[in-house]
């Protein structure tokens, strides 16, 4: 579904991605792991079209995304879950959910969203930034479900959440996968990653240095945690 080839990216003079190549198949959940500054978020932002100082090939279902702006990429089926939850203070919860257009056949109805996330229903008329951190994370995930995005780009959706809410995020991602959705996930929590993902790419200094399946990650968890500095 997603193919990245020879991707290089810079912030000014500093190169942050170097010849990154990876593929994500339809229905897969794939994680990007690495220390802070390894280039994980830049890779995700490059796929979304939010980081423009880049060179290389990115395609979605065979459609070249390289010259397409972020809003066109979203309409082709990319769903963005930002690391800071991306809540709008000037929009209510319902407005946050209905702002993006519905782009795919898997788009959830508002009723289904509110059934799945009763907390959001109770706070539906509140400004989104009045929600707790966990509720805002649920809102960010609910928003891309409402869009019906085919490929979710999730940047550390479990960061700062309680273990109970981390579990909840896992349930949602597994639900997306069971529904035929695809996820590219930036995740520092290796244990969590193995509970939701099929494959893992380890990034260091802007390169993919290892690609591992779940069994390999579980077998080498201690070594990998030490490598990630966790």
């Amino acid at each position, binding site marked *: 579904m997603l193919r990245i080839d020879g991707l290089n990216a810079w912030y000014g003079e500093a190169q942050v991605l170097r010849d990154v190549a990876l593929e994500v198949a339809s229905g897969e959940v794939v994680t990007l792991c690495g220390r802070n500054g390894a280039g994980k978020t830049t890779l995700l932002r490059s796929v*979304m*079209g*939010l980081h423009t100082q880049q060179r290389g090939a990115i395609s979605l279902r065979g459609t070249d995304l390289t010259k397409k*702006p*972020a*809003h066109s990429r*979203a*309409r082709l089926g990319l769903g*963005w879950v*930002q690391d*800071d939850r*991306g809540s*709008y*203070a*000037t*929009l209510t919860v319902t*407005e946050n959910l*209905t*702002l*993006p*257009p519905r*782009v795919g056949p898997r788009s959830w109805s508002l009723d289904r969203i509110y059934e799945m996330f009763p907390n959001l229903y109770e706070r539906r008329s509140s400004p989104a930034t009045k929600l707790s951190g966990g509720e805002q994370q649920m809102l960010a995930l609910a*928003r891309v479900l409402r*869009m019906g995005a085919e490929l979710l780009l999730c940047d550390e959706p479990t960061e700062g959440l309680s273990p109970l809410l981390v579990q909840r995020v896992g349930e949602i991602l597994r639900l997306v996968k069971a529904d035929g959705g695809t996820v590219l996930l930036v995740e520092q929590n290796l244990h969590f990653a193995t509970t939701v993902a099929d494959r893992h790419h380890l990034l260091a200094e802007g390169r993919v240095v290892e690609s591992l399946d779940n069994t390999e990650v579980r077998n080498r968890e201690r070594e990998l945690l030490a490598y990630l500095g966790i």
Partner: protein
Amino acid sequence: MTNFLEQTFNGLVSGSFLALLALGLAVIFGLLRVVNFAHGAIYMLGAFGAYVLADELGLSFWAALIAVPLGLAVVGVVLERAFIHRLTRLDPLYNFLLTFGLTLILQDLVKARYGVQSSPYAVPSALSGSVDLGLFEFPAYRVFVLAMSVAICVGVWALLTRTRIGMVVRAATERPELTRAFGIDVGRWITPVFGFGVALAGLAGVLAAPMRAVHPLMGADLIIVVFAVVVIGGLGSIFGSVAVGFVIGVLQVWAEAYAPESWRALIAQTLPFLLMAVVLLWRPAGLFGREETA
């Protein structure tokens, strides 16, 4: 008491112009991040537009009230497409300088054609009398100006808070990059929003024509106060800009009416800037402004 209420009403009318101009500036700044220095010159063009339509084409105030803002909206769209959007990726100072230069050009063009003296514009006959407000009589035209500006501010507020267009504009104003990532072409909204903001300035100019001296520098005098209003309200905050516009209008008129006689003009003129300094020290983002987000 009657005098106080009358002065307060005068202040609200004076604040109407500040509120309409600040509303346009806030809408433009919110989405484009452009401080449109030419806003005062557009206000002046609005007043001159009404004057020219009446003097050279014999068109009524009512026709000018529709035609001038629409015409200036087109001018705004052309300005945005021809100049402003080319500079939006650069430091905001470039667009500030561009609009400052446009102000000088527009003022000098009007000066060259109409001179520096005030041009007369009569109050429309339907609004030439007074209205009995119970405790005092008030000129009908001033009541109309206040009613119009309140109606427009409420209308813009309803547009922004009750419609999908408003929701998109609010989202794009608050977090432009994130909004693009949600499939919304933020750039598509920029030109019409700039045109709309310019039309509001033009409308304020038409409303001002029968009340204030129509001359090439009428906008230059006012725009500095409007900038103070927008900064106090919070850059990009629609509600803040409008509310502070009316409040400053009232405070200035109270100062002119009740401050010690030898200090009146000084206090009325410096009040907006003193308030701005205090508010910036207390809340750097303004009374209703928010810190920037991605």
